[in-house]
């Protein structure tokens, strides 16, 4: 079965109309009422469901395609309608379901998760971890795709990693969208988020401007001490953040020995500088790898056809490395926004969201810090997912760009 683009647009339009109706307070007699934030979140989840279904319709057999909305409806019923407490969980589950429907193994894991959540209360996570591992081993052994040794290694690692992620997942999923919206409406929180997003974005752009030429130069040259330079680029990952903050403060802070000339302590510039220091390696490293993957012969051919060295860079190497560089940008942005230690020391104000979480947790207690932390995690997570989505849509992967015949 093949849905056309117009079918998709029509269904999306219907969905929009439905949610618009749900948003109108005066309409009575509806089976349930939703606050605006939940309404919008549900709309986006359902739109994603439609979009995935539209893409799936080109790949799946009719029978499996028909089961796709059935599963979604079941999720909607169990996690959204029957248990309003589980609504935050629904949005994540819905997206995962739509993304993973094509992959049998992930869909299996997904089903186990849902079932353990329904039947294994009050310890659904523990049940999922155990059952999921058993399923993974059984599935892979059944498919005979890999030997038991590789499967066991994978499962063992995954189980421990799952325990590590556990607090974050619980933390995020157990608050309703409404609380999040309320937290966001506090001016202190909104301001901190704004500072964080702004500084991380500027930081990424600045790193992009000097990181790409640096990476290109390193990828295209070979000189003595290149290894030393590459190690130096890694250095910021190694140095403790508080030490970075102190070092910056000592040099270009208010009382630093260059303080009379440049003073960035307590300014947005200070925040950005501290973020740049810790996040730049991520972009530079990925960009080096991406440029190295572009075969020099491609540039050679471009040169022979008349392109100058700069022309070959703009028209050949950069477009081919763009995807990798964009991934580097995402990583850099993520690292920049998550930085606390050096930022708090160099520029406590203007306060970024992570610093706000830190200060509230030490001064006002965990309960005050929690909503801000959740808002921060969710915002970053969704921007992260969004950026990766942009990457997969806007940047083509060039299979074997050092292409062999």
């Amino acid at each position, binding site marked *: 079965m093949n849905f056309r683009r117009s079918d998709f647009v029509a269904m999306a339009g219907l969905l929009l109309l439905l949610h618009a109706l749900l948003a109108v307070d005066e309409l009575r007699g509806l089976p349930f009422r939703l606050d605006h934030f939940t309404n919008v979140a549900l709309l986006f989840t359902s739109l994603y469901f439609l979009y995935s279904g539209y893409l799936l319709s080109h790949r799946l057999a009719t029978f499996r395609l028909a089961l796709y909305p059935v599963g979604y409806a079941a999720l909607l019923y169990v996690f959204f309608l029957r248990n309003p407490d589980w609504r935050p969980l629904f949005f994540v589950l819905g997206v995962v379901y739509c993304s993973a429907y094509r992959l049998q193994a992930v869909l299996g894991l997904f089903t186990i998760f849902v079932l353990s959540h329904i039947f294994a209360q009050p310890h659904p996570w523990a049940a999922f971890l155990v059952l999921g591992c058993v399923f993974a081993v059984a599935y892979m052994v059944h498919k005979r795709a890999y030997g038991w040794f590789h499967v066991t290694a994978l499962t063992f690692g995954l189980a421990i990693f799952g325990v590590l992620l556990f607090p974050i997942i619980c933390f995020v999923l157990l608050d309703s969208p409404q609380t999040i919206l309320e937290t966001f409406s506090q001016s202190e929180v909104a301001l901190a988020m704004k500072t964080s997003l702004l500084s991380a974005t500027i930081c990424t752009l600045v790193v992009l401007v000097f990181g790409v030429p640096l990476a290109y130069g390193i990828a295209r040259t070979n000189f003595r001490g290149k290894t030393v330079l590459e190690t130096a680029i890694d250095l910021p990952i190694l140095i403790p953040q508080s030490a970075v903050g102190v070092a910056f403060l000592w040099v270009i802070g208010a009382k630093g020995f260059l303080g009379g000339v440049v003073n960035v302590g307590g300014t947005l510039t200070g925040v950005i500088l501290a973020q740049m220091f810790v996040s730049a390696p991520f972009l530079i490293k990925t960009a080096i790898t991406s440029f190295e993957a572009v075969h020099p012969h491609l540039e050679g051919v471009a040169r022979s056809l008349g392109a100058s060295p700069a022309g070959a860079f703009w028209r050949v190497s950069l477009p081919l490395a763009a995807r990798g560089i964009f991934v580097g940008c995402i990583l850099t942005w993520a690292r920049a926004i998550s930085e606390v230690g050096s930022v708090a020391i160099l520029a406590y104000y203007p306060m970024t969201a992570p610093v706000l979480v830190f200060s509230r947790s030490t001064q006002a207690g965990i309960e005050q810090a929690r909503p801000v932390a959740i808002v921060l995690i969710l915002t970053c997570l969704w921007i992260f997912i969004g950026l990766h989505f942009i990457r997969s849509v806007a940047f083509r992967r060039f299979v074997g760009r050092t*292409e062999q015949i």
Partner: protein
Amino acid sequence: MIVLSNLQKSLGSFRLLIERLEIQPGEYLVILGPSGAGKSVLLLTVAGLIRSGAGQLFFDGADVTSLPPEKRDVGLVFQEANLFPHLTVAKNIAFGKRYRRKRAAEIQERVKLLIDMLSIRHLLDRTVEGLSGGEKQRVAVARALSIGPTILLLDEPLGLLDQNTREELRKELRRVHDGLRTTTLHVTHDRNEAFTMADRIAILNEGRLAQVGPREEIFTRPASEFVARFLGVENVLDAFAEQDASGRTFLRIGESRLPVPSQYQGKVRFCVRPEDVSLHPSVPLRAEAAASLSGTIKSIEDRGAVLRLVVNCPVGDVVVLCGKQQFLGSGLSCSSSVWLRLNAASIHVLPRPD
């Protein structure tokens, strides 16, 4: 005319030194040599992608030694087609046009011609990813020739293709060359490729030219033992050359005395192709211009249509290629005694190494 004069390049312990190489306008010159001989280095130096250490390079009389590749007007095709993966086939071919605004119309015409010659019109809107190896190389050749280069440089262009596609493309490349007469420098380690495509062949070994000449000359009169062996002449044997009163030279091979032209006297080495040696179960009839050698069959190797025999003779081991049917009919087998006959016309006396 392209002239390489005293061109030098050192890379680590490897050293390339071309004392003089001239490529005539419209000529198809193949550089043939074993891997590691410096063929690609030579090609990249002509392209300008490697800066030469010393020496000079002239394109039509103009010194281009210090020009960057974009000012040289060379067409370049590598073993991997190196098409730009982010562009369609049409945009790949049109890449050079952007940098030649004044000649845009001329290039447009040329591209049309090339598309027809290489029959790639149906590929124009495709992305590079889905093309087969042969299609990729066709597009790469079209792209290289689109700018109307002074010289077309081909670096093992058929090296990664399967046998059938390779032979097809050989013909096609040669046809394109015969149509456009673009001066071409083609690098390969495949001697069959060299012999089917070249006007002239240059043999490169360890960074030096071992011999340059028309393909017939290279084939029949290799200039050294290296060239002879590299071109598949497996028999390089010892003989004694002497001159009679009238000034004719004779070659004493075993007990036979053959009239063979030779510049040298005394101990010499000569070569003869395995396919030019004939095998006889008994003493062949005496002939004026042929030497007979007796020996025993040492080994037999089945090569499909022919058998490769190694015959142990007093002058050394001689390799013979022999038709399978003929050999089986003669009732010979391993360690049988046989006679070999060498024609004077197929014997080439090798120059002495200096």
